[in-house]
């Protein structure tokens, strides 16, 4: 079945554990779908060509650029965004570490980095500083100089693996 360019179709997936659905044309990328159709504005849009990393979300548990994947591709997928990390009342441990280590200033890049780090720490619970810096090379932060971000991620890894 081919969906015509000007045809809107219903896209349904799981967002932060809850079923959601909305209509869009094939050309709408996931970041726009989250922000403009589902009104979840935690995911930020920076460059829209996969370079800056601001829009990174988890698709089926893996960090991907939401500007480089189209909503129509995601029927039935499981999407996690920054809204899915903590609760309205409380930040999760990674978010708290970012606050404690001054890992953000303006906060524009932060949701993407948090989502990447969530995937990264899941698959690499005891990373070296070099490994953290390598995975962070997929994100651009113009405020912090990255030092605080590296410290926050390493501190989270240490705290999670502490007995």
């Amino acid at each position: 079945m081919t969906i015509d360019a000007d045809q809107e179709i219903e896209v349904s997936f799981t967002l932060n554990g809850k079923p959601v659905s909305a209509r869009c044309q094939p050309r709408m990328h996931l970041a726009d779908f989250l922000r403009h159709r589902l009104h979840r504005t935690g995911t930020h849009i920076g460059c829209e060509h996969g370079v800056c990393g601001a829009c990174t979300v988890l698709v089926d548990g893996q960090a991907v650029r939401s500007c480089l994947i189209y909503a129509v591709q995601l029927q039935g997928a499981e999407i996690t965004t920054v809204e899915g990390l903590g609760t309205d009342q409380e930040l999760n441990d990674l978010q708290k570490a970012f606050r404690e280590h001054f890992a953000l200033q303006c906060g524009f890049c932060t949701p993407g980095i948090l989502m990447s780090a969530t995937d990264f720490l899941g698959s690499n619970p005891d990373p070296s500083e070099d490994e953290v810096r390598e995975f962070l090379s997929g994100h651009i932060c113009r405020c912090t100089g990255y030092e605080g971000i590296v410290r926050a991620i390493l501190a989270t890894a240490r705290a999670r693996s502490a007995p």
Partner: protein
Amino acid sequence: MKPAPFSYAAPRSVGEALELLARYGADARILAGGQTLGPMLNMRIATPSVLVDINRIAGWKLPRRASAQSVLTHALIRQREGIAPDGIFAEVPLARMMMPMVGHYQTRNRGTVCGSIAHGDPTAELPLALLVLDGTVHLASAKGSRAVPARNFYIGPLTTERTPEELVVAVEWPILADTRFAFREVGVHGTHSTLCTAAVALRTDEAGRVADLRVGLTAIADRPLLLDTAPFIGEVPNDDWCRAICDAVRSSLSFVSDMHASAEYRRHTAAVLTERCLAELTSDRAGE
């Protein structure tokens, strides 16, 4: 930065995908990982009328293995699957050592190995690895299939032997037994925005003579290039041998200038990186 309107098809089988490609031809683009096509769509460098999304194709059937001496990667193998020591490139060390330099952690989650081969970016690592290994690209269309050796696959910048009706269904990576590999890369930011990459494969016989030598370079021209290494086979590696190879890199390959580096810079860097690869692989050679 929104893509121009496109129609969207998500075939469930390779046959269905090939029918769509036959119907739409050059008006269609194949969407696999989308980590290169996505930016091109968003920036409207590419404005296909239909996207053929192959991600919903289940149970990829691989072409018949040419021999037990190769690894086949099908069109939906993600780049991240090539990183781990026990991953898809466990027996293809040259490709495995390049993988951390391919894109970023986040783009490797989505980007595919075959996509990188099919795109043919003249600065990309995987096409260079395939060329040095003398691998093969397996193409299929509604009319049939064919296998194209990597050395014939790359024609020019982002231009390959693949016709718009064809899909890269798999890439075949030869396992070179008893061969050792080295590669070096220089980029604008560390290993990103590559300015020059050298890859060397070396096998010596029991007497220490060179039985197989392959030297490949990329990011220096419109496609990855191989050095003619015939003059250097059969010798026992020494300093003169190494110097002659680096001289041949300088004199027999063509280099391009662009906004990032001059041809002269690339020529010099290519020889230096080749020398470092050779030094790594022949650290026990005489004369040092």
